[in-house]
Each structure stands twice: as structure tokens, then as C-alpha cells.
């Protein structure tokens, strides 16, 4: 029985990957192309991104749902950006607003941003966060990834993930404050 279950699981993963490939390869190419500006590099990025997707197939439940699309965007964008950085040998930089360091949360103000409009305002601010902040925040709160999973996905340490979440939150608080 266990043997059959293993076969079924892997069969699902295999067909899932082929659906993802058919569904997203052109979309992924356009994203990579927009970042890299070179068709061959963009193809390499898409190929590299699919290799990363294989490693994360267990995290994808429905290949065609928006959550999957967003996850794929994160993977292909980060792959393309990493490739671009490797070419220019430019290290990744995360803007840190030192003034936001050490700001403590005040539990008395949690009742704001409850209406649909208020949620939209926060969503817009989240979408406009710097790339790394936004990706980490959405992996955490949209994809329900653990800090360890985010660290693995983003190539960061767990401590760095936690720090990034803290900084992203402070940045949002400052912008919406």
C-alpha cells in the first residue's frame, strides 16, 4: 500500500510539472527577458527556474491557481536577478532604514486596517515594497512558508529572514503611519 501511495504521489508531481511547464514557460520567459534583456540569458533563467520549481513541487497544490503563479514569479524573477548580478558581479543590497531599527510593536493599535479599503491600502503598500522585502513577506503570509523554507528559497539565513520580515513590517508601519 505504501508502495502504491509513493507511486501516486510521484505521478502527481510529474504531471504537475508538465502542466507548469506548458502553462508558464512563455510567461516566465517574458519576465526573465524584461530583467535580462537577452533571449538566450532569459531562456537559461527559465530553465534554471524550472529546476528550482522541481525542488518545490511539494509546495504547489494547484498548478493553475494565482498562488502558484505568484510563487513562480518569485522564482523566475529571483533567478533572473541573480543571473544579472552574477554577470555584473554586483552584490545584492537591501535598503535598510536605520531609523526603523528598534521600533517596538505597540499592541494597542491592532484594531486599525480592518475594513476592505484599509486592507487594500496595506496590500498596495506590501506590493510596492522593495523586492526582497515583498518576496519574503508574501512567502510568509501568502504562501505560509516557515522561516526555514523562506531562507532556503531566498538563499538567506533564517536570522536574515526574520530580520527582513521585521524591517519590512517597520517600513510598512512608517509608510502607513
Amino acid at each position, binding site marked *: 500500500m505504501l508502495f502504491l501511495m*509513493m*507511486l501516486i504521489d*510521484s*505521478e502527481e*508531481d*510529474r504531471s504537475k*510539472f*508538465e502542466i507548469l*511547464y506548458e502553462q508558464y*514557460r*512563455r*510567461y516566465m*520567459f*517574458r*519576465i526573465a*527577458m*524584461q530583467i535580462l534583456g537577452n*533571449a*538566450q540569458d*532569459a*531562456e537559461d533563467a*527559465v*530553465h534554471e527556474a*524550472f*529546476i528550482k520549481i*522541481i*525542488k518545490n513541487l511539494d509546495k504547489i497544490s494547484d498548478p493553475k491557481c*494565482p*498562488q502558484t*503563479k*505568484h510563487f513562480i*514569479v518569485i522564482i523566475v524573477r529571483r533567478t533572473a536577478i541573480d543571473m544579472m548580478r552574477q554577470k555584473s558581479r554586483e552584490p545584492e543590497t537591501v535598503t535598510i532604514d536605520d531609523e526603523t531599527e528598534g521600533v517596538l*510593536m*505597540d*499592541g*494597542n*493599535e*491592532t484594531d*486599525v*486596517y480592518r475594513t476592505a479599503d484599509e*486592507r*487594500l491600502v*496595506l*496590500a*498596495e503598500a*506590501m*506590493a510596492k515594497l522593495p523586492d526582497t522585502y*515583498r518576496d519574503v*513577506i*508574501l512567502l*510568509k*503570509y*501568502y504562501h505560509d512558508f516557515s522561516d526555514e523554507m523562506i531562507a532556503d528559497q531566498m538563499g538567506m539565513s533564517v536570522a536574515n529572514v526574520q530580520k527582513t520580515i521585521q524591517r519590512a*513590517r517597520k517600513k*510598512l*508601519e512608517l509608510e*502607513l*503611519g
Partner: protein
Amino acid sequence: MVITDEMLRDSAEMAAAIYLEDIEKQIADVPGHKFSARFERRMRRLIRVQRRTPRMNVFIGAMQKAAVFFAVLMLGLGIVTVSVEAYRDQFIKFVKKVTRRSTTYEYRIGNVPYLKADLRKSVIGYVPKGFSIFKSDISERYLYIYYRDDANYNFSIQLIYVDSNSNGVISIDTENSEMKDLLINSYEAVLNTKEDERQLLWSINNVMCLLAGNIDEAEMIHIAEKIEVLFDSE
């Protein structure tokens, strides 16, 4: 004002949707693209590997191990075994071809003085990015190194020292495969391609070389060209 986990979770789906809309706008001007044959080939390979069950990957690994054992065994005994009747014609033809070539390449016992070499001092001058050694077996007269990367691409290098005490015979599955002749650093070589699996067979003096794997042909040739065997007379 404080932003809580709950608020972030409440707005996350909407934020992702806004972000995806923004991405759509950013890529709106990127023209359509016809993927290159290279990309399609690499992706087909990826899909094929992905289609295999984990059990099949274990089986293929075991088969590769068995193939190495078989090659060593044949080297020691100086015999060729045909296991499948259907392969017989092509197999024998290929063996004859190899034998003919090995005569030309001075494989045959007693044909030429054999150069002494220590395969432990061999140099693998090029390994494609992302590949690392998964297993190896290296001695004075035999070298086997198996490389693989995270995407299930793999290749193995076998160097077999041939002298008057041993024949150099390697069997290769040639059923429905494509074969072509080429040169590796001026040594004649045979490239056998079956689907995405390739074997490149050549010799460096009296050292037989077999490079096998599922990597690109160009990469395979580049790896082969960068393999150096140090002989005593050099």
C-alpha cells in the same frame, strides 16, 4: 500604528494580485518568443527525468554501477558478452568497429610497445558548472568518476589502462542509436547517442576512455578534450 501578522495575512492575497498585475504591465511590451532548439532539448530532458519515479532513478543509478562493474570484468577477462539477441547484429558490428579502431589506435596486444601510465595522476581539466563528484573509484590502472548536478544531469568518466595482460573492450547499447565519428585532440573517437544518453569512446595511446552521460554533446566533447593522462615517456 502597528501592523500585525493577522493584518499582513489578510492583505497578502490582495498584495500578490496587485503585484502580479504590475508584473503584467511591466512585461506587456516584451515581444513573443520562439524558444530555441537548445532550450526545448534541455527542457525535454528535464521533463523526462522528472517523469521517472524515484525508484526508476535508483534503478538507473544501480544500472550505471553494474555497467562499470561489467566493463571492469570484461577488461579483466578480455571477453565480450552479448546479452540480448536483438542487439546481436549491431552490437557485433560495433564491437568490430571498435576493435578495428582499437587496432588503429594501438589497442591490440603486442601491436606496439605500451606506454606506462598511472591513472591516479590523470587530470580532469574541465567539469561543467554545477557538477560535483558523486562517486569515484581510482587506481593506477583504472579511473572511474561519476559527476552529477542538482538537476539530475550526470556524466561519468572511465579511463582503462590497456597492456599485454588485458584487452580493451567496452560494450555499448547501439540499438536505434546514432553514431558519429569525430576527433578528440587528434585521437579518433566515436560518439554514440541514444535519446539523451551519450557515450563518447576514444583512446589516449593505450588508455581507453569512455565518457557517458546525459549532458549536451558540446559539453561532453569539451570535457573529453580536457582530460589528460600522463605517460612515463612524456
